[in-house]
């Protein structure tokens, strides 16, 4: 068997395992869906209250994006945290697989699951508010979501390091990264209202370009070709952040092996 085929098979192991786990925890999944819907509705109703349809859609997109990021991040962060809790982390790290194989499998499932989950939330909100999206360009929205996901996966891999390094509270520390994305990506407001230095920081967040692209696509019906200024930063970030995430995870693994942090806790 070629190395690539073996690594792909191993990668699929993580997808299949996470699928089974999601199936077994279906009650939690329903609860999580209710939580996501309630949160997104609460935010979006601010736009309804203001009687501003454009604000409503903008908030809706922000809320849906936030839900997506939360799912992708929590799944990737749980790559380590869940295994540490179950005690399987050492077995996974003993297996003859490359670390990127594990990360690719886990993040692929996270992205697919996140897209399905978020798509459902978007559908319910659209129906709830009776939105007219006939002018929306869904190809643009999908393109930006997928491109942005690649960059977010890179950041997610870096976030997965935290539970590896900080045994007790590492998983919770990934919330810090999420909250920074929330602040600097213009999830619920325009970047332009931020102080200049914060706008500079925002230009390094993939969320900024992802949200701008999705909003322009859904609200203005802008095609991807009209938004190339948002496309190339996402491509560059993906090219940089994914290898960087894998490299950083490898360094963290080495540190964990040196200090004995792979051991089961809890």
């Amino acid at each position, binding site marked *: 068997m070629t190395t690539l085929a073996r690594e792909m098979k191993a990668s699929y192991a993580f997808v299949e395992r996470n699928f089974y786990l999601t199936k077994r925890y279906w009650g939690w999944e329903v609860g999580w869906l209710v939580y996501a819907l309630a949160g997104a509705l609460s935010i979006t109703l601010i736009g309804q209250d203001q009687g501003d349809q454009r604000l409503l859609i903008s908030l809706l997109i922000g809320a849906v994006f936030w839900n997506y990021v939360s799912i992708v991040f929590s799944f990737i962060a749980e790559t380590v945290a869940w295994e540490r809790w179950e005690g*399987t982390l050492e077995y996974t790290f003993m297996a003859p697989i490359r670390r990127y194989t594990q990360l690719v499998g886990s993040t692929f499932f996270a992205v697919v699951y996140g897209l399905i989950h978020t798509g459902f939330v978007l559908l319910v909100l659209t129906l709830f508010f009776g939105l007219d999206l006939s002018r929306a360009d869904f190809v643009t929205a999908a393109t930006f979501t997928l491109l942005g996901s690649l960059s977010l996966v890179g950041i997610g891999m870096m976030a997965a390091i935290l539970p590896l390094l900080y045994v007790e509270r590492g998983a919770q520390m990934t919330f810090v990264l999420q909250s920074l994305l929330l602040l600097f990506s213009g999830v619920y407001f325009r970047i332009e209202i931020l102080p200049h230095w914060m706008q500079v920081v925002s230009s390094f967040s993939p969320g900024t370009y992802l949200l701008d692209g999705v909003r322009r696509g859904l609200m203005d019906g802008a095609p991807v070709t009209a938004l190339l200024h948002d496309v190339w930063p996402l491509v560059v970030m993906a090219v940089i952040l994914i290898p960087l995430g894998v490299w950083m995870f490898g360094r963290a693994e080495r540190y964990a092996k040196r200090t004995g942090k792979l051991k089961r806790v809890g």
Partner: protein
Amino acid sequence: MALSLAPRPTVAEPPIRPSISPSHAVPALLIEHVTKRFVAGRKKKPVVAVNDVSLRIERGEVYGVLGANGGGKSTLIRLVSTLLTLDSGRVEVFGHDIERDEMAVKRMINRVSVDAAFFKKLSPAENLVYAARLYGLDAARARQEAIRILSRLGIKESRLTRPLEQMSRGMQQKVAIARSILTSPTLLLLDEPTTGLDPRSKLDVQSFIEELRDSHGATIVLTTHDLVEAERLCDRIGILNDGRLVVEGTADQLKEMVARDHGEDPTLQAVFMTYTGRSLDDDVEEESAEDDE
């Protein structure tokens, strides 16, 4: 005769080896001057978990590692498992250096730890197929092989699809053993595989290890607190004390030595007490602290 605490060997002493007959063949496991330290806090003094340990295990041998809790047994197993990096020294598995040729080593080894670590919501079948895929095995064949191994260990096929959390501790440990065998390791690391099991499960597991030794020629490193188990299963035994390998040999050689040199009863318990300087009861009481090694 009342058992007494014997003086410990000084740390500078090399391990006592009554019978060393080095083979020229590539050993299954070669550990040379391995040391591993941990630092608990920023300003705390490093704890030496494994201290200049050297040993050689031949193909097809079952090597028992005995020692008190905190003696370095699990750390040694983790070092060979590639779960810890070496501070100094080197380890080779069938001639492959674990640092330079880590992936090749990983394909040759598997491990069973004292706690059966699984995704407990998943069934044994799902857990085993997941593990098999990580080692590049075909899922359907792995499932068939798992059924065969678990059947040998007394677990019916009908139990394979129920969540593992519904299984007893003993059954979970048997599934853990099946997982380790599934990948056909040439070196099997058993870290207290029978600790906490009921007598029936313990016997099942011990019989299975014997079968592996006798029929499959597997090389096994077994850490245990059960001296009867060690005597029954192991070709040779090494005793770790405070991270040092203080003595090694066959059970008979060790018993003979402790009787001759220390005037103790020729039992493995006397050997253990002589070279660890503590009673077996002390050790068992600290069982819960085992994983802190």
